[in-house]
């Protein structure tokens, strides 16, 4: 295209224009990289800097996502405990992509971290990455979601007892409904820990013969989708009386649909996690109650297990973290 120009003026303006744009790009790129790097500084290095130890242990973390409150709390717990021990955390997030998670694990291996924490995107496909870490002699810990791959060795898995959580949710909902009614589950079948919750829920609910599960649909754990699915459910099951939402984003999305339909009195909602927003709704009575996990605690215990492993002890294969409930009374 440029070859076709013949006038001298055109040529000159081309060269200066292109050069200018080129240099502009470079300058901005360089600026961005520096700016971005400076921005991130406050997250991990404050206490580490105080110690000024030349050989601070580095722990690579690959989270499932940073967009859920749960993981933000878990991350805060990790950071809190890491700061206490003077470990440096390298935190990344795979945002539900198992392939990206594998890349992040490879990256940690190249960076020769001292331990890796994984919150797997997929219980099966995380295995190949764990094998690589095993080969490199880096201990691997899983938090929240377990590896169910036949490949790879995990030192310790730290997670809530999700089945127990599901059972507690069933108890809460039965209590709210007076032990009878039609209920639905808004689930997220791609996630193993969620399926444990649903399994526990169904198991416990079977003990109440007058409660019937009329539907189980996926809302992908997301608020907007939950609202849409719930709108549909309200159309197809006008006599619905209860809902178990597998996390609070789902519960809050469904709540929006229930409120819009003016069925707040008719439908009792039980959520999971008791995020601050859900707590407010529980206090006003819009949500009946929540199962509480302790993500911060999971985070702290994970680093605790790593600390033990560094000290030469062997932490247990599984550290279950108790769940509780949060209702209007308890709040």
């Amino acid at each position, binding site marked *: 295209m440029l070859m076709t120009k013949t006038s001298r003026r055109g040529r000159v303006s081309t060269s200066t224009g292109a050069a200018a744009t080129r240099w502009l790009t470079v300058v901005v790129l360089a600026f961005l*990289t520096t700016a*971005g790097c400076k921005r991130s500084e406050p997250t991990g290095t404050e206490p580490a800097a105080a110690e000024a130890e030349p050989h601070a242990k580095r722990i690579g973390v690959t989270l499932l996502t940073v967009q859920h409150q749960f993981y933000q709390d878990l991350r805060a717990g990790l950071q809190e405990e890491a700061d206490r021990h003077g470990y440096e955390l390298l935190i990344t997030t795979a945002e539900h992509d198992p392939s990206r998670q594998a890349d992040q694990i*490879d990256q940690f291996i190249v960076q020769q971290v001292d331990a890796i924490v994984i919150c797997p995107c997929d219980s099966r496909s995380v295995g190949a990455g764990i094998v690589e870490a095993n080969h490199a002699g880096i201990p691997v810990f899983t938090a929240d979601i377990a590896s169910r791959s036949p490949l790879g060795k995990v030192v310790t898995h730290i997670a809530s007892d999700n089945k127990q959580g599901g059972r507690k949710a069933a108890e809460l909902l039965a209590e709210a409904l007076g032990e009878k009614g039609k209920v639905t589950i808004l689930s997220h079948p*791609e996630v193993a820990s969620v399926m444990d919750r649903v399994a526990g829920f169904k198991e416990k609910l079977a003990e109440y013969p007058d409660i019937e599960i009329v539907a189980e649909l996926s809302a992908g754990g997301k608020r907007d989708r939950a609202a849409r699915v719930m709108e549909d459910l309200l159309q197809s099951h006008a006599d619905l009386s209860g809902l178990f939402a597998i996390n609070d984003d789902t519960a809050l999305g469904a709540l929006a649909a229930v409120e819009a339909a003016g069925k707040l009195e008719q439908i009792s909602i039980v959520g999971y996690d008791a995020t601050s927003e859900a707590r407010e709704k529980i206090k006003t009575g819009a949500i009946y109650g929540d199962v509480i996990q302790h993500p911060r605690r999971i985070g702290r215990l994970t680093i605790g297990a790593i600390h033990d492993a560094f000290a030469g002890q062997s932490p247990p294969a599984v550290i279950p973290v108790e769940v509780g409930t949060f209702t209007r009374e308890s709040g």
Partner: protein
Amino acid sequence: MSKTHQQTARAASASSDRRAAARALAVMHWVVRLRMLVVLALLVVAVTILTDGDFAGPKNLINVARQISFEALIAFGMTLVIVTGGIDLSVGSLVALTGVVAAVVMQATLDWAAPVCILAGLLTGCGVGALSGTISGSVITRFSVPPFIVTLAAMLIARGFAFIACSGQTVYELPPGLILLGRGFVLESVLGKVLPVPVLIMLLGFVCFQILLSRTIFGRGVIAVGSNEEAARLAGIRVARTRLIVYVLTGALCGIVGVMQDAKLMAGDPKVGEMWELNVIAAVVVGGTSLFGGRGTIWGTLIGALIIGVLNNSLNLLHVEHFWQKVVLGLVILLAALLDAALRRLGRQ
């Protein structure tokens, strides 16, 4: 310089001036063509300095190359699609679908010899990808529906089928030898861990598509269709067929990458490839291919993929917050698009 020399020089000034002008123009042409290489080189230097040399470590570079190879391979096909003036949003979902279907086939044929089993998986993956490309391409050309909406639909359908094909459960019983395709190294016993197999596959793809686009009649046709469809038609190029083939090729590439992905994770996972279409399109556009069609190169795309890969890697090495990484990547893509627009304007002058 003597007087006579000056006179002869002046006498021949017209022709020599023209020659110099042509030379200057050729140099300019190369500078403009290589602008992205310059950006990449400066990026590498900046990142190496910022990471105290961590970035330039051989292990890291090999790792970056391997990470890039998956999306780069698809980006070569996407380049052809975009040069015809089209777009393919279904590539990420297709990687998941082809990967899962191939994994199901490999699981079913586990009793066979490993190479046969893996070959069966590869053929199935490519077949499913090419079939999907054929369907999208046919709908686009036969009914003249915009590629954006057709491939958007294909993206949803393929993602849905990826979960359906494995009932939502990741398929993880695969032949052990498969891992070589995703994590192996070429001639590891001789060369050591230098050239990852995915990188070799990507480079082979690069050579094929480079030749295809720049040295074949088909490649000329792709560019002609993208520059001026009507003129291409009048020149006797089979426009519909050309536009169909680019989608088929891209689909088949997704099939190969799907199996490589199976190998990397040693599992067929329906969740992989989320948002890949955007990374791939970004690599193509950053590499200087015009979204309006008619202009683009395969090697530009390779550099685009490298720029995005290096950025991703260095943002991780520098511990940049996830959300800031998005901001930086978005800005880089925006800058590339601006650069593209500026060059187009200059080209018209």
